């Protein structure tokens, strides 16, 4: 065993990178579910975001445009879900699952000619002065911009849901869509917007995998990250900061267990391998011991006539 081989600074830095894709997807899904819609298509939207972002940044040479396109790609797929569930009033669970299957297929079709290509490098921002702080500097202030965007989204979502009128309306729609409708709020419109936001976030999360974390395009490369994000939202009891804790725990322990293995720590590998799932679930279950519960209208279809 040689624990000195593990560099804590690099470990923390890669923890944040590993957590960002699920964080982005989860925070988007959180908004969707708070609006009372269950979209199981996160995985599909992520992978479409991954290929859209990858293709556009390869074609234009700009990772920024790539991320923008990824968000758009995720949102377009989410729009399909919105049409099915909000306009055609289709079953949300079935539509979401179909969206995942469709997204996986569509992405591998779109990605045919992008296998084995290297994307343009996405530069880290060095925040001047701060990034020179010993130890903390490289962890906190020399990451790529999307990682900061993820954190900002968590803070923003929390603030909007808690303190603004828009947030209140969104929650009202999710808790009781009939009451919200009676008050004159456009339930369908609000839900469609939330679904689009969720799609854009999932798309960004997917592109983060294909442009920063791996970086390359491979079919099916999200490999279940969308499902982790979905589970995270539930275990975090639909609260933004808990989603952040969950994502960091999951990403952190994933990276940590690889580090421990490589350093030859004498814990059986099976335990290490299952630890990210176990610890994340445990911590979030303990945290959710308070009375928070799912949005009351979650997964229910709404039509103004009923």
């Amino acid at each position, binding site marked *: 065993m040689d624990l000195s*081989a*593990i*560099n804590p600074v*690099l*470990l923390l830095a*890669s923890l944040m990178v*590993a957590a960002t*894709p699920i964080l982005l997807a989860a925070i988007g899904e959180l908004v969707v579910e708070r609006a009372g819609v269950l979209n199981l298509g996160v995985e599909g939207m992520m992978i479409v975001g991954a290929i859209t972002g990858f293709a556009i940044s390869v074609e234009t040479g700009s990772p920024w445009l790539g991320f923008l396109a990824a968000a758009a790609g995720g949102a377009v797929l989410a729009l399909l879900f919105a049409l099915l569930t909000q306009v055609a009033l289709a079953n949300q669970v079935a539509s979401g699952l179909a969206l995942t299957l469709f997204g*996986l297929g569509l992405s*591998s079709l779109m*990605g*045919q000619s992008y*296998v*084995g*290509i*290297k994307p343009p490098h996405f530069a880290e921002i060095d925040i001047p002065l701060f990034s020179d702080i010993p130890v903390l500097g490289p962890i906190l202030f020399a990451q790529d911009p999307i990682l900061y965007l993820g954190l900002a989204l968590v803070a923003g979502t929390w603030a909007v849901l808690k303190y603004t009128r828009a947030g209140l309306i969104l929650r009202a729609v999710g808790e009781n869509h009939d009451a919200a409708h009676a008050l004159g709020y456009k339930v369908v419109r609000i839900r469609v917007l939330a679904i689009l936001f969720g799609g854009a976030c999932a798309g960004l999360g997917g592109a983060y*995998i294909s442009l920063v*974390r*791996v*970086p*390359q395009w*491979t*079919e*099916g*490369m*999200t*490999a*279940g*990250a969308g499902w982790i994000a979905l589970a995270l939202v539930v275990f975090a009891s639909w609260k933004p900061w808990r989603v952040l804790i969950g994502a960091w725990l999951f990403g952190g322990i*994933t*990276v940590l267990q*690889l*580090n421990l*293995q*490589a*350093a*030859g720590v*004498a814990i*059986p*590998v*099976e335990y290490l*391998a299952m630890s990210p799932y176990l610890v994340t679930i445990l911590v979030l279950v303990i945290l959710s011991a308070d009375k928070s519960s799912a949005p009351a209208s979650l997964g229910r279809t709404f039509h103004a006539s009923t």
Partner: protein
Amino acid sequence: MKLTKLLATAALALGMATTAMADKTKVGFVYVGPVGDGGWTYEHDQGRKAVVEAFGDKVETVYVESVPEGPDAERVMTQMALNGADLIFATSFGYMDAVQNVAKKFPKVKFEHATGYKTAPNVSVYSARFYEGRAVQGTIAGRMTKSNIIGYIASFPIPEVIRGINSAYIHAKKVNPDVEFKIVWVYTWFDPAKEADAAKTLIEQGADVILQHTDSTAPQAAAQKAGNVITFGQASDMAEYAPLPRVSSIIDNWGPYYVRRTKAVMDGTWESVSTWDGIREGMVKIGEISSAVPGDVKAEAEALRDAIAAGEYHPFTGPLNKQDGTPWLKEGEVADDGTLLGMNFYVEGIEGEIPQ
């Protein structure tokens, strides 16, 4: 009236189409990853294409990608058998029990299971001696490493993977006594993000050679990003990462075997067999050793490859001890296939334990 007529015509057409297809041999393929993984599944799909090319209209192939190892595999194969498949290739170790179960239910359908060891009257197993390629890889790795730390991304603790680690280690150690292996188990065949994380972790801990036993090219990309790290193509050539980081590769060449077995089904000569072919038979190929490798190292690696191909050298030749120091092979003794197929121990010098 019109509708009924239309439906009747359609049914008739369908019936005729089915009869027309009946004299075609239908071959199904079950893949563990997507065909675009650039590694393991990609090569199996190349094998499928070779079958299509060889028999043209006489054969119809179907495949299902990203089938998890477990009950889902049983469902997929049952579906294939019900749809009239004559021959089914199940291309991952973890399909073993699913193949056995489905094969019992469909005694007339022939099954071929890759890298497994359970046969039945209608189940053959086939695999390639990847460890021969690992010997060549280990030689290059041992010569090329400067930090003397070689990182190994392992998937599942099964004999197939353990054999590869042992073979690579033995040959790296032979050319470089100071070499050390860091092994990380990721418990997946295909998860690019996780594979990239594993590669990054190993690089951060000082490895400058990354060997992988997972299916995607993600570790190649991670090594390229890190710089000064070399890798080897796994299952497929992965030439898009040459000359650096990818300096060589082990290529699985399934095509000839798939064509031969399909032919056997057509001729009615198919029998249950266990095939384990290596470099000599052409099932394992060593990809072009790139210009990043010095000439003498390249010559040494190619000489080893040729010696294995000629049957003059076996990668597991004594004296070799097991990890705990107990003797395994005496001087000049060669490992038998039975031991190799069930290999569940590290050779002496490798640190760490195999997950049980």
